[in-house]
């Protein structure tokens, strides 16, 4: 961090199967967010290999990594991280605009907008597409963030403390959304510090001081 080198992860061996819903649980500073960022190619490990569908992410050039983040992975953050200047609909179809020229966008914008509306309808926000993020509740904003993450039909959804900023009822609603997505086949890796939330996932991985302590299946 800054000029000081801090070992956050100290030998992590993890594999995620297609269709799994994994919760990574650990105390604050255990390295769970760092692990999530490495999985989503937002950060690089100092040592080790990260493979996605048998392809080593460390061999990807920056353009390939950008495309990977755009097409293969969807991020959901604790604080939603929506763009305040854009409407709900624009926030959701933003990933579809990335990497396209103006002509390319005009060629596919109708399709993209329809997809965004479909995702927002799935999130129960069909009536809010023209609103700005500041006009929504916390739970609604998080559902918009999930919608944005799903826009390009990613193979992997990464959620970093998705309920951390919400009350329990609203958080429960978000977890139900994630569970429904997983039932439909979405692969999800979720980071949380709350065991009760972790138990909603199919498998729990516990991180302590940068190491995986144990992995439990929650379906047993």
């Amino acid at each position: 961090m800054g000029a000081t080198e801090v070992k956050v992860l100290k030998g992590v061996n993890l594999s995620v199967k297609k269709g799994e819903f994994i919760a990574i649980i650990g105390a604050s500073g255990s390295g769970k967010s760092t692990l999530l960022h490495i999985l989503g190619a937002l950060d690089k490990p100092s040592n080790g290999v990260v493979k996605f569908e048998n392809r080593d992410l460390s061999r990807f050039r920056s353009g390939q990594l950008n495309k990977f983040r755009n097409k293969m992975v969807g991020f959901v953050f604790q604080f939603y991280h929506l763009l305040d200047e854009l409407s709900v609909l624009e926030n959701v179809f933003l990933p579809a605009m990335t990497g396209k020229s103006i002509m390319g966008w005009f060629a596919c914008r109708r399709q993209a907008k329809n997809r965004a509306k479909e995702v927002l309808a799935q999130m129960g926000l069909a009536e809010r597409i023209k609103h700005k993020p500041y006009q929504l509740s916390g739970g609604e904003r998080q559902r918009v963030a999930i919608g944005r993450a799903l826009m390009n039909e990613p193979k992997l959804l990464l959620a970093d403390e998705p309920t951390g900023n919400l009350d329990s009822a609203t958080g429960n609603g978000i977890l139900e959304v994630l569970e429904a997505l997983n039932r439909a086949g979405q692969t999800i890796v979720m980071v949380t510090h709350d065991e009760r939330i972790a138990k909603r996932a199919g498998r729990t991985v516990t991180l302590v001081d940068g190491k995986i302590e144990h992995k439990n299946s929650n379906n047993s």
Partner: protein
Amino acid sequence: MYKIILATRYLLKRRITYFAVLAVALSVFIVIVVMTVMAGLVNEFKEKNHRFAGDCIVGTESLVGFAYYEDFTTILEQQDYIEVVSPVIKSFALLRPIVSKQDDVIEIMGIDPVRHALATGFADTLSYNASDASKAFWALKSGSSGFVFWSSKEGLSKPSEPTQDPNLPGCVFGEFLLSKITNITNARYLAGTSYSISCFPLTARGALAQAGTDLVNTKTFYFSDQSSTGIPRVDGLVVYLPFEEAQLLCGMAGPTKRASRLHIRFSPDVKIEVGCEKIRLLWQKFMQDKTDETQSYTLDTVTVQSWKQYRRASIAPMENEQTEMSVMFGFVGITTVFIVLVVFYMIISHKSKDIGILKSIGVSNLDIIELFSLYAFLVGIIGSSIGLSAGWIFLWKINPIEDWLYKHFGFQLWDRTMYAIGDIPNQAEFGMLATIVISAIVASLVGALIPTLQAARQKPVETLQVGQL
């Protein structure tokens, strides 16, 4: 496409951007107004010098002049690219109004008024004889008595319309010289006044041509007109005399006549530098042909110059001022760059989270640079448009504004009694406007460059985690 949407939304929503837009607008406004006025004054002044000198000048600075000018004039008049040649006598003399005991040093220019009016803009400078330069040296007489004393005060009596007498040798005064000598600004009151002009005649070798009591040649001339060239040094020093009279006064009218200069006007489609070069070649041949003549040595100091070269000493100070002004505005541009830099630094600091979000959905560093560069471009173009519009309106109304200020507060940007200008120039050149606008946009882009590059290099993990703290 998202870059256009985001850049436009940032521009509209982030109020701090307005400061950057205002900085660009103010800079563009100031530069347009000052450069237009300055360029207009310089161009006007250059044009006045061009009209005073004609297109090309063959001559010498030596007070003895040069010989065989008539032969060279004949050669020049045979060239199809030359319209008119006007020989001129130039020297220094002493002027004394007949009723005064005070002498003033003046510069005399002996001209043929008709030829000189064709070769230069002489006719347009005259007060009474602008439409017919042939009468420039017809002495003006007072309508009632024929002659008046020049000490008559203005306003005491309105003089009647003067009459002109072609039989008396007239002289045309520069307007500032006139008011300096007589304290009278309205030349009507000077009809009928007369002046003694004295000159030291010189031989072709530069020695005094006469000795003893005939050391100087003196002749009385009558006020015939005043000239206003708009060039203060000319209008404050020069008296025009008939060519032959000036030639006699200066001792140049001997068996081998001499003149100081030939003022030349080219045909309209001839480029000045091309014409001057042709004349230089003619002159070189002429000098060779005259090598064996008795006064061929007088040709050694003769040069062929374009009007710009000839009037360099007059024009250069104003051009230097214009250059200095441009340099100063370079500093204005640098200030604008720094203002934009500071504003963008603040904006991008606030937008770290957005940058992290964009990178998390696959936006590249180059895309981030393009986004904020587009933002800076919009700041530049909107600021420039505002500055350009405001500058154009201000220039359109600059003279009425100055008139209003003068009427209510006695304030003038340039004191018209000191500066020979009419209206303040307000015609902006398209090329200059385009340069200023493009420079302003470039300044915005440059100002935003460092913050933009820093934004692109930001690690999304760091920016997003800051948001999560």
